[in-house]
């Protein structure tokens, strides 16, 4: 049901074809579909309204450039607007303060605060080389303190002990002192979950913030959150001067419209995505990927667009169709794709556009293929007969030797290429069935859960 937006938009935008401009008239249907898609993705209604109005305004009269059809131009407007809103202000942490840099986490019950505290500790330790102290102010939920303590041990963070009988503010003060004394670079404070209606507990947070003055105050929110996320974000935003948002459980299949709601309401950047229960499941937030996810159209569309601008359009459409269908992806297509990758400035920028699954970073993937090997692979394919390119199965030992000799490389290179092609074929198939995530799970060298 969710993957239909791109299809639906395609039919709607088909009708726009042949017109040089987007008008109030020819975008009406498309706008309605976008509204629907956003609501299905759990973007809060008031936010949907504002967003759709802005898109309409931006789209109407927008020049349709040579390389894009009006329909594509419209999709681009939506996508850009969405990615723009989601990405605005994203800068990451400022860790250059006088240590300890104090990070306060807050949010609803079960949002993922405690797990995120553990993940941040690991992240800051590994990526930023900071020593991190963890402390729990959750004196309410059974075993909440112990939960964080176990995570601290697991990631090798310094643990500041507390008990359910302590007052959260006292714990926080003591933790800041301890962090200062032990010269910890960062102190992460976990708090108890609370609803937006719990005035007492919100007031407690406010006092905590005033007294501790953390450098970062992060709102932790579940990416599956529904319409009320907008009210929750408003309540936390009014209580605390938030500095950022962390979106958890993004390894699920929710479209994650709450990201847009929360971003719009708090105005604070979404810094990280939680992408798994394991403590390594924390990733820097990519607005482009999130935009595509909310709209439910993978990144195929934006890929097509960019490819179109740089290479032959017919070829791009053919590729996009094949990518979507997962059928008949032969070695000629692989060559086209390799050539396009080179045109696009290498694999890395291409991978940046794919909504990668949890734990996979594009550098890791790109590391497997550099541009020189791209060129070699193209040479290999060029050295094949058209029939071999179309039916790679017929490539036997003697053909391999001939192909390798033609390209001036050794036979194992041919094997590697063929293997890679088979994998890509599989990936395309899976992509069409289960989306990008499942597709990428099969690639070698990638951590799976």
């Amino acid at each position, binding site marked *: 049901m969710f993957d239909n937006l791109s299809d639906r938009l395609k039919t709607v935008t088909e009708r726009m074809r042949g017109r040089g401009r987007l008008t109030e008239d020819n975008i009406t249907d498309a706008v309605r579909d976008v509204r629907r898609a956003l*609501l299905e*993705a*759990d973007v809060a*209604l008031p936010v949907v309204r504002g967003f759709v109005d802005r898109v309409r305004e931006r789209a109407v009269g927008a020049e349709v450039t040579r390389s894009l059809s009006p329909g594509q131009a419209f999709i681009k407007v939506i996508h850009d607007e969405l990615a723009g809103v989601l990405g605005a202000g994203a800068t990451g942490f400022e860790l250059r303060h006088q240590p300890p840099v104090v990070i306060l986490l807050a949010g609803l019950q079960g949002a993922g605060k405690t797990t995120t505290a553990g993940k941040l500790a690991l992240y800051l330790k590994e990526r930023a080389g900071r020593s991190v102290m963890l402390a729990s102010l959750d004196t309410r939920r059974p075993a909440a303190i112990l939960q964080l303590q176990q995570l601290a041990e697991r990631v090798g963070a310094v643990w500041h002990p507390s008990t359910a009988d302590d007052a959260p503010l006292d714990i926080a003060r003591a933790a800041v002192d301890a962090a200062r004394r032990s010269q910890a670079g960062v102190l992460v404070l976990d708090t108890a979950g609370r609803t937006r209606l719990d005035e007492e507990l919100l007031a407690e947070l406010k006092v905590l913030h005033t007294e501790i003055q953390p450098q970062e105050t992060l709102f932790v929110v579940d990416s599956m959150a*529904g319409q*009320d996320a907008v*009210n*929750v974000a408003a309540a936390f935003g009014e209580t605390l001067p938030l500095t950022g948002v962390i979106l958890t*459980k993004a*390894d699920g299949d929710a479209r994650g419209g709450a990201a847009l709601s929360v971003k719009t309401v708090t105005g604070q950047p979404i810094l990280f995505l939680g992408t798994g229960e394991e403590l390594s499941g924390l990733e820097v937030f990519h607005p482009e990927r999130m935009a595509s996810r909310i709209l439910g159209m993978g990144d195929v569309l934006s890929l097509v667009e960019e490819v179109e601008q740089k290479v032959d359009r017919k070829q791009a459409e053919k590729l996009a169709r094949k990518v979507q269908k997962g059928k008949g992806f032969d070695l000629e297509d692989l060559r086209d794709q390799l050539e396009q990758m080179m045109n696009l400035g290498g694999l890395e920028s291409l991978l940046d556009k794919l909504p990668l699954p949890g734990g996979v970073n594009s550098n890791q993937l790109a590391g497997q293929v550099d541009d020189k090997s791209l060129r070699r692979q193209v040479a290999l394919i060029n050295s094949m007969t058209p029939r071999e390119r179309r039916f790679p199965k017929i490539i036997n030992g003697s053909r391999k030797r001939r192909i390798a000799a033609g390209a001036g490389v050794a036979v194992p290179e041919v094997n590697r290429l063929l293997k890679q092609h088979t994998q890509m074929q599989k990936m395309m198939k899976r992509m069409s069935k289960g989306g990008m995530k499942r597709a990428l799970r099969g690639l070698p060298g990638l951590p799976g859960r």
Partner: protein
Amino acid sequence: MFSITMRAMSDRDEQKPRGGFFKRLRERMNRGRGLGLTLGFAGRKLDDELAEELETQLLMADVGLDAADRILAAMRKKLGKAAIDSDDQVRALLRDVLADMLRDHAQPLTVDTSARPYVILVVGVNGSGKTTTIGKLARRLKDQGYSVMLAAGDTYRAAAIEQLQAWGERNDVPVVAQQPGADPAAVIYDACEAARARGADVLLADTAGRLQNKAGLMAELEKVVRIAGKLDPAAPHEKMLVLDSSLGQNAISQAVEFHNAVGLTGITMTKLDGGAKGGVLVALAAQLDVPFRFIGVGEQAEDMDVFDADAFAAALAGIESA
């Protein structure tokens, strides 16, 4: 067979002198402004403009587009050609339509005391409130005179076992647990045996949170169900999904996928004290033939009520407690 509902209701009504827990539910849910219908409906037909206003309110309650359409169609049908007298009339109409859609699903959990143990397996996505719901169920069942045991089937999350043990202590019921990382199916099987040996009436089995798109974890759950049925083929007798009301349309895919995996027999919705309306249950009612059991309205042992279609519908429609 005893109905938990009836006995529990009388307990609680004694504690809360005025109006009982439906009132409290409505109060709690209304703190989030109910549906907050902005008014001025009097004298109007259920025209496009009014329909849009209603749709807005329904969507904001997480009812979803399709269910919202169906609700509006049903309201139109009920209203016929009549004009609207008052805002209250619109609300009452909305409540009636919602209650009609939910009523068949309001089937309270009943414990078959001949099972010994009657096994209740609690499943759901991460953080939905499974462990807390077990703590609340333990309290309720114990208050009703059943002997209860708990099984610490979440061997994955940090301190999940200790969290359940804390609930066991609070309620003074025994907890069967193994070490972290143990096979959850084995833990639950052992607990079934222990409960049988002790002649416990009910065994409440916790499981680790899992997102429904993780095939491996869903398969693990299927295995838990299979193994739990070794001693008594009818076990687990209740396979209860815990849904968090603060989540949106993804709850539908949660219910569908968990149902596909284990065949749910009940759904409990938590965190209705938080301001979210849980309208997704209206959408679910049309899609799944699974009873709605309880609603969670707080973090304490007593903060759980039996699902009541009329009360839920009234709260959704923003009708003040009667």
